[in-house]
């Protein structure tokens, strides 16, 4: 008996991500969650600009490819016109927390009934490793080659904490993909968010820490360790809002 096989919510296309990049894991978690909740028949996904730009080739449902940072606005347009559909947004840190911060904050403040999957790998991957709004202090990038210096580059942005200052969001959680245990926890959070959306509860936001072995200049396994040991210090995992549990 098969105890693990690829979900039908992903297409047969081979993913283009670099070896060991955990974007692919998150794609699978989102896709499996949609399938397990039975939401696949009326589901629209929004792909970002960045490493996940080709996500429209991978999710086996209707997809719109948005301009850089605008995915929450695109999702708002779709969801308001099709309130019975499931709308998920998949964005990286440059897309969501830099160029698209206005769209991010306002979709959250309006309490749009959508699910945002925020991939935080603390780097601009697609463009070749530039500093991101989430680059760690001291972490090297091609535009801060001696490491991020707060005096010059400022500090990383903690998006979950920031959005948790707003009244509207229903569920906000930060999870990670650095080992099996955390991937399982990430799946649980993503599924919960999509379930809340299907129940019409409102805005749900899952930040997922992801590795970038290529631009961190690490071997894939080493990158997982770095994520678990370093990234989680700047970006503590946990639930930042869960109105179903009375956590405001």
């Amino acid at each position, binding site marked *: *008996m*098969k*105890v*693990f*096989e*690829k*979900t039908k919510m*992903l297409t047969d296309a*081979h*993913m283009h*991500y*670099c*070896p*060991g*990049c*955990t*974007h*692919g*894991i998150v794609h*699978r978690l989102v896709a499996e969650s949609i399938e397990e909740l039975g939401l696949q028949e009326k589901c629209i996904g929004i792909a970002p600009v960045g490493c996940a730009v080709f996500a429209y080739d991978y999710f086996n449902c209707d997809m719109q490819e948005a301009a850089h940072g605008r995915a929450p606005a695109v999702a708002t347009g779709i969801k308001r016109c099709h309130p019975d559909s499931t709308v998920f947004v998949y964005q990286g840190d440059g897309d969501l927390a830099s160029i698209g911060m206005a769209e991010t904050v306002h979709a959250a403040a309006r309490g749009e009934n959508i699910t945002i999957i925020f991939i935080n790998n603390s780097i601009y991957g697609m463009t070749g490793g530039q500093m991101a709004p989430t680059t760690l202090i001291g972490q090297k990038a091609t535009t801060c080659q001696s490491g991020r210096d707060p005096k010059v580059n400022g500090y990383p942005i903690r998006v979950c904490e920031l959005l948790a200052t707003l009244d509207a969001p229903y569920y906000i959680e930060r999870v990670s993909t650095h*080992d*099996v245990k955390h*991937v*399982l926890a990430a799946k649980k959070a993503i599924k919960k968010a999509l379930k809340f959306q299907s129940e019409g509860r409102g805005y749900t936001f899952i930040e997922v820490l992801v590795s970038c*072995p290529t631009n961190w200049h690490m*071997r*894939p*396994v080493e990158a*997982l360790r770095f994520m678990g040991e370093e990234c989680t210090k700047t970006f503590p995992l946990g639930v930042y809002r869960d109105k179903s549990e009375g956590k405001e």
Partner: protein
Amino acid sequence: MAKITIDEKVCKGCGLCADACPKKVISLSEHRMNQSGYFVAEAVNPQNCIGCTFCAIMCPDCAITVEK
């Protein structure tokens, strides 16, 4: 008996599966390359597999199917 099947066409040889396996079932090949030029993951100790799915959970490319 538990068994894993690795889709070698999709495998990128990242080794996350081997790292996650508690029974050292998987190892990256030192000789065999797929069409994309990656040294693929192989089940070198298939008899040890317990079907825990950890390898599949960590595989970023959905390359692994697990049977039990």
